[in-house]
Structure formats: structure tokens, C-alpha cells
């Protein structure tokens, strides 16, 4: 499949209104399972619809391979029905007046595929998705999960090079969702289809995607592998949006005080990082370790004393609520904690697990000391 390139695309619905999508650059390459992730209203669905051709661009251009399919300033617009893509709607949008078979072979009929081949392809797709026995039923007679499969089958039948999915799992219950996630991963490898997937669910994004594009307020925040996004968030928005329980942010500078900020500042001093370059640091809950004895604290870690205020078991995991000078930290562990509530403890975070953000919230590179250490470790 040729690469789909979004070049500085923008969309605004009114002349002076806020932009739903602004100045977005993104490349989707062959075999990608690209996920557009962001809170609701961030412009991810609009972006997907612009790729499909269901929304027009205000600025910018979209190319598929060498071919421009949409560009306001060049006056080019290829309508959705000519783009040869597949799109699965959040509502599934099955045609209520057609049977499952009618829904599935609609695209093939349009393409004037001969009957025998049509039959064969429809059967194959239905078998793959396990909906063959519902062939002659109508959509209203199927459950949500089955409808979802029909919506997928309908698009897969025409074998599109790109499959666009708009929050396709959000209407399913938890168990079905897990099942369909596996299904999607299988389809991705089996059909070799490039997939662009929209979701607000970080777990869905992390588990499915080969690459994630995080969006907020119509702006692209970061593109990268799930590991990139989680381990090296480009800014505070990404750091705070991805991860549950969310990352602990310690505000520094500008009058922010308290024992926690002092501990962070002491850590920065020790690392040789000038305090004024750092606006805040972020600590992932699972990177926070606890110790009873001050002697057990590693030398170059960010550390301090805390009180364990609550232990919240989530079944297999524990969330620990820590109080420090009126502020709260959340830690998580998958080992049963051997502390009790209201115990005075020490916490520490390894230096390479401390995320540093400048006063504008952008990520600062890891300090030399920790980078070298990581390299050595690698």
C-alpha cells in the first residue's frame, strides 16, 4: 500500500471559529496499525473522516502515494466513493433493510464482481469473522458484538488497502471488547491491511497499535510506538493522558513549595540540572518504590519521606496513596505490599524514571548521568 500523508491539514467549521484540527502532519505507512488517541473533542474523528473524504479540508493536503486526493489550495478533491478505503463507524451503520449477506456483498456488487467470486469472498470473510450462520438475518436480529463483526466484514469483503476504524469497540461490553481486540490484531496480520484506528481508550491504543498519534485540541502532540508514548512522553499532556493511575506531577519553581518539591529540587541539584530549566517532574506510579529504612535508599534516586495513607487493592494490583507534606502521590505495585496504612516510610524513584518537563511542559532530555547509565545497562 502506498503511504498516506497528511500535510499540514486544518479543519474549521466556521470562518473565525476554533479549529477542530490544526496544522496536522502525519504519515501512515504500509502495514501500520496507527491509532489516533485523545480525549473526546480532540479532532481525532474529524481527522479520520478527512482521510476518508467525508469532511473537506480547510487547509493542507492529503496524498496517497504520489496522488493528491485532497488539497484545498490546488482545488483537488477525490470523493469518498473513489478513495477505495474501508470505514467502520462507531454506530456500525449497518443498513437495516439489507440482510447480513446484503450488507456484506454491497461493495462487491458495486464493483461488479462476478457472482461466483462474490459468493466466495463473502463466505470467506464471514467465516473469518464467525458470522456465517447469520447470513440471512437482518442487523436488528443480531447482538452488538455480531453487528460489529458485520460492519467489519462489510468493509473487509472489498479488501481495501486502508481500513479506517472510528471507535469501533466503544459500544461493546468489556469481555467482547477484549475478544474483538484480538480479532483486530489477527485481521491486521492476516489481511495485511493498513489500519487507522480512532479511540479515546489508552489501553486499546497501547494494546493494538504499532504506532500511536496522540492528539489534543486539534493539535498533534506526539507520534510514536506505544513504548515511546509511555516511556518518553513528549510533553505533560501525553504523560498525563496515558497511564492509569495517572502520572504524579510535581510542580517546581514559581513559588511551588513543600517537601515534595524540595526533594525534587535536591534531586535536580544532585544531577547537576539547573533548577530554572525544569518546570515540573513526572513520576509514574509503578516507578515509585518504598523502603522502611533510610539506609535502603539508592544514592542517585529522587527520594523523601512519606506516610502511607491508604492501600487500594484492585485485584492483582495495589494502588498506594502516599501523603507528603499535604500533597498526594500515587504508587502502584503488583506485589502484595507488606506495609500497613499510616506507616511512615521512605519513597524513591530511580533517576532514569524521573520525567523532566521544562516550564512550558515540553519533555527535557534525560540528564547525561542517567543516559550513560541506561547505555551501560543496555
Amino acid at each position, binding site marked *: 500500500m502506498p503511504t498516506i500523508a497528511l500535510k499540514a491539514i486544518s479543519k474549521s467549521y466556521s470562518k473565525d471559529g476554533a479549529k477542530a484540527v490544526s496544522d496536522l502532519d502525519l504519515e501512515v505507512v504500509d502495514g501500520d496499525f496507527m491509532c489516533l488517541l485523545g480525549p473526546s473533542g480532540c479532532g481525532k474523528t474529524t481527522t479520520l473522516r478527512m482521510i476518508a473524504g*467525508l469532511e473537506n479540508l480547510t487547509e493542507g493536503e492529503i496524498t496517497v502515494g504520489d496522488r493528491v486526493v485532497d488539497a484545498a489550495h490546488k482545488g483537488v478533491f477525490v470523493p*469518498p466513493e473513489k478513495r477505495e478505503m474501508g470505514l467502520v463507524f462507531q454506530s456500525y451503520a*449497518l443498513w437495516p433493510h439489507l440482510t447480513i449477506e446484503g450488507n456484506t456483498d*454491497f461493495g462487491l456488487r458495486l464493483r461488479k464482481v462476478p457472482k461466483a467470486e462474490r459468493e466466495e469472498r463473502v463466505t470467506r470473510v464471514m467465516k473469518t469473522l464467525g458470522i456465517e450462520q447469520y447470513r440471512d438475518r437482518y442487523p436488528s436480529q443480531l447482538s452488538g458484538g455480531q453487528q460489529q463483526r458485520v460492519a467489519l466484514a462489510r468493509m473487509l469483503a472489498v479488501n481495501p488497502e486502508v481500513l479506517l476504524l472510528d471507535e469501533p469497540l466503544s459500544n461493546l461490553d468489556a469481555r467482547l471488547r477484549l475478544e474483538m481486540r484480538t480479532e483486530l490484531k489477527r485481521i491486521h496480520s492476516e489481511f495485511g491491511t493498513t489500519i487507522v484506528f480512532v479511540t479515546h481508550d489508552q489501553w486499546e491504543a497501547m494494546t493494538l497499535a504499532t504506532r500511536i498519534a496522540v492528539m489534543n485540541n486539534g493539535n498533534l502532540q506526539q507520534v510514536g510506538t506505544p513504548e515511546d508514548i509511555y516511556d518518553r512522553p513528549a510533553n505533560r499532556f501525553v504523560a498525563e493522558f496515558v497511564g492509569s493511575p495517572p502520572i504524579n506531577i510535581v510542580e517546581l519553581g514559581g513559588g511551588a513549595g513543600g517537601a515534595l518539591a524540595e526533594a525534587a529540587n535536591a534531586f535536580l541539584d544532585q544531577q547537576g540540572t539547573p533548577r530554572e530549566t525544569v518546570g515540573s517532574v513526572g513520576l509514574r506510579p509503578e516507578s515509585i518504590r518504598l523502603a522502611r529504612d533510610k539506609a535502603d535508599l539508592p544514592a542517585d534516586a529522587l527520594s523523601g519521606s512519606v506516610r502511607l495513607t491508604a492501600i487500594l487493592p484492585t485485584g492483582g494490583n495495589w494502588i498506594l496513596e502516599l501523603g507528603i507534606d499535604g500533597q498526594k502521590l500515587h504508587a502502584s505495585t503488583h506485589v502484595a505490599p507488606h506495609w500497613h496504612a499510616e506507616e511512615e516510610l521512605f519513597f524513591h524513584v530511580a533517576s532514569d524514571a524521573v520525567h523532566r518537563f521544562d516550564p512550558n511542559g515540553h519533555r527535557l532530555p534525560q540528564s547525561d548521568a542517567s543516559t550513560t547509565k541506561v547505555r551501560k545497562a543496555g
Partner: protein
Amino acid sequence: MTGARQTDPAGAVAESRLNRLNYKIRTAWREPTAIIGILLTIVFAYLIVVPIAALLYDSVEVQFGDERRAGAPEGGLTTYYFSRALFSPVAQDLFWQPLSHTLSISVGAIIISLSVGGVLAWLLGRTDLFARRWFATALIVPYMLPSWTFALAWRTLFKNREVGGQMGWFEAMGFPPPDWLAYGQVPITIILALHYTPFVILLFGNALRRFDSQLEDSARVLGAPPRTVARKIILPLMLPALMSATVLIFAKCLGEFGVSYVLGLPVDYDVLATSLFRSISSRQPGVAAVIAIAIMAIGIISLLIDARLVRESRKFVTVGGKGSMDRKNALGIFRLPATVFAGLIFLISVGLPLLVLTMSTVMRVPGNFALSNFTLDYWIGQDLEFVAFPTGILLTPDLWTAVWNTLTIVGFASVCSGMMGILVGYVVVRSQVKAVSVFLRQVTFFPYLVPGIAFAAAYLSLFAVPRGPIPALYGTSLILILALMADQMPYASRAGISAMMQLGKDPEEAAQVAGAGWFRRMISIVIPIQKGALVAGILLPFISGIRGLSLFVILAVPGTDVLTTFSLRLLDYNYTQAANSVVLIISAIAYFGTLAVQKMTKTNLADGLEG
């Protein structure tokens, strides 16, 4: 070099602008939606905006023959018609008295129907009334029948020597009813009240049903006695529904023609609609235009008030909860009296009138119940002694002409407006050009604000004479079809818009992404899915068109008689039995038609009333 460098960017900018324009045009106009939108805009501008503009203009333009009185040449501008209708010595008869009659009838009808309908709605919705389900349907019947059915029944019973022809039943039995009981304000008010009571039952009943019983329970738990709960919780929340019913009944009374014509005319009891009719029949188009404008203005104002109230009541929308008012109050010793009351209302508003009408068509002499007096001659007899009716009504060619006209005119108009309704819905929901969709939505709704009789007057003033390439249409079926279409558009376009909204964009976009072009999507996706809405959008206006009178009475001529105008003409010639038979035929079509549509589309009349 410098010059080239300066022109180059300028050229590029111009080119880019051109491209952008091209892009805009391409994306906005690439599908027929936009072109259909433009066509619909032109059609409705002509069918709705232009007639009303013509009517407005008629009220200030000197008409043929009025040059001397208006003191200006024909075609000049004048305030003559306004001052004649509103301030001259005849203004009292032309406008002010009809206005006060209209208002007093409306107020009377509203008070009666609110109190009767309110009680019935409560009995039907919240109590253990006997035969509750049966009553719930039976008490709605008056709304399905033409209102002047009851006027004819009244006249058959209470007619006195004020009017010639056959005697009324009471008169024939030796008790000539006084004028006040036979004609004018009293009977008109009672009949309109009975006709609009179902309105209240439906609107108020719906509001009661939606009422969350938890609100009531909360008040009870806090210690409020039932009386306080009713006064402080239920009534305030029901107020918007009551107000809405009030305004709707008022707006309907405003354009009411048939009842006032049948029962008001004999004693010169004019309402605005009949005064307008008289002005038109006595060839005073200028004055007629002024009266039509007044009716229109009052109609618009009252419906704007209603819209305002509805918006206010949206504040209460949070009311919706899971609990509904399924709980029934036990009536105790009042159970039987309450049932008798409901039965009585049914008898007065449906049973008796229909019985009287039916009997009147099989009796030679009114009020004589001897077996020898009964005959089927008026239906199927031959060689009768009447001048114009040598045969029974069913054997009269005029009836079948009227039936044919009704079916073709109303049918054609309904099919057109139903299809246009779906198209309007499609364009309004899909159009990229916002102005088109806003215009279409509003213009197709506009006739709703204009009582049918005023609208008919507008059509008359536009199409009575040739205008531009369009010949004079008065006297043709086409003018009836066009006026009817415009009159039905509010319902048709609302049905279309809500059907398209409900469908949403997704199914169509899914087909688009799958590779289907516009026509393919229309034929394979949109129309098959909207089949039900289309059928309902054609049949419901058809049924209401069949029993409609006020539009036809102004625009129809004997050659284009429909059933309603035919029966009115028969009545004018005092062929009571024949007129009553025709009205019974209309009632039967309207009643069974409504039932059939409800069954077919699984909809409820109540749903159509709101929205």
C-alpha cells in the same frame, strides 16, 4: 528581475485563490443535493412566499372597479382597504364583530375542552376507569372526523324556520328550538369544544404519562398531602402542556370555517373565516386580503407565543426519569359515575351525531320514527321527485365526480408533498450550503402559521389572473393541488426532516465509502430505509386533506368539486339527506383511513400532534 519576482507571488496567490474557489465549489456542489436544494428553494419560494407576498400587496393595491372610492388609478397604492376593513362604518360588520365572535368562540371552546379533556385525560391515564383502553381510542374519534360533521348533525336536530328546507327533528316533533340554541355562538362553541377535546386528551395525557412519579413520591415522603402535591408539583409541571393545547386550539379555531358556515350563516353570525369568505364571494379582494392578513397575523403571534412557551418548558426537561406514572389511582365509589361521564362524552361527541346523521339519510320526514318513514331512497333510490336529484346519492354522477376529484386532487397533492417532504428532509440534513437548509426548513414550516382559509385567499389573489408566463389557474384542479401541497408541507417536511435526522449520516456514508455514488445511495439505501416514513408522509396528509374544507371552499368551482365542497353545495340547496350522506362518506374514509395508517405504520395520532 525585480518585476518578475513581484508578479510571481501575486500570480501564485491569484492561482491559489482560484483553486480554493474551485475546491469550495467542487466539494459543495459535487453532489445533486445542492442542485435539488436550489430547485426546492425556488419551488417553495413560489408556492409559499410569493402567494403571501401577493396577498400583502393586494391589501394596498387599488383593485379593478375601486378607482373612484380609493381615489387612485387601478394598480396604484392605497390605504383604502385597511381603513374600510378596520375604521369605516362597515368595519364593525366586516371585521370587528367577526373578530369578537371568533375570540369568544375560541375562548369558550378552550375552556370547555380544557376542563372536559383534562378530566378525561386524567381518568384515562391515571385511574382504574372501566373500559379504559376502549375509551382511550373511542374518545379520540371526534378528532378524526371533519368538525362540521357535528355541525350538520346539530342542524339536523335543532334546525328551525330561520332556514328553509326540511324541518329539524325537534321542530318536526313540535318543539321548535329558539335561534340561540339552533344557530350561532352556543352551538358553534359546543361543537368546536367537542371537536378539540381529543387534542387536550392527547397532549395532556402524553404529558401525564411522561411525568416521573418519583417527583410526586418525593413530595409525599416529605409529608405533602395529595392536594398539595397536585397543586404544587403536578400542576406547575403540566402547565406547559396545557398552554400548548390552549394555543393550538386557538390557532385552529381562528381558521375554522365549516362549523361557522353551517351554523352561523342563518343568523348572520360571522367569524373571521366566514367574513373573509363573504368578502371573496362578493368580489372585494382588497378587503378580503386585509382580513386574511389579520387572521394570519393573529395565527403567527399565537404560535410564536406557543414556541416561546415550549422553549420555556424545556427547562423542565430534566424531569425525565426512569419512573413513569404507571400507578393508577383507585376511583372507589366514583368509578361508576366517572365511567358514565366518559360514556356520556363519547355519546355526545361521537355516538349521537353519527347516529342522527345516519338516521337522517334514511328517513323521509324528520323526527318521525314510524317504520314506514324509513327508506334507502336517498342512498340508492331512482325516479325521486327532487329537481336536481332524480336518483339516490350513490347513483348520482356528481358524487362520483367529487369522489374522483377528491382522490386525484388530494392524492396527487399528498404524493407530491410526501416525496418533497423526504427531499426537503434530505437537503436540510445534508446540504453543505447552510443558507439553503435554513431557508427550506423555515419556508416549508411557514404555512403551519397561516390558517388554511387565509392561505387559500393568498392563492386566489396570486392565481386569479395570469401573472407572467403562468396563466390564470382559478377554476382548475392545479390551483387546488398547489395550495394543498403548500398547506401540507409543514407536516411533510417535518416528517421528512425527522426521518432523515433519525437515520443519521452513517448508513449513507458507509455506502459512500463502499463506493456508491449519489443516485446509487438514494436508490439502494436512503429510499428503502425511509419507505415507512414516506408512506406515512403521504397517507396522513391525504386523510386530513380529504376532510379539509377551508382551502377548497375558496378555490374550488363546481367543476372541481371535492367531497367536502360538494356536500356544502348540497346543504346550500337544502338537500339535507344528500349533504349528510356525503359527510358520512367523508367521515368513514377519514376514520378508517386513520386506523389503517396507524396500523400500518404502528404510529399513534398523539405522536403526530407534537414535535
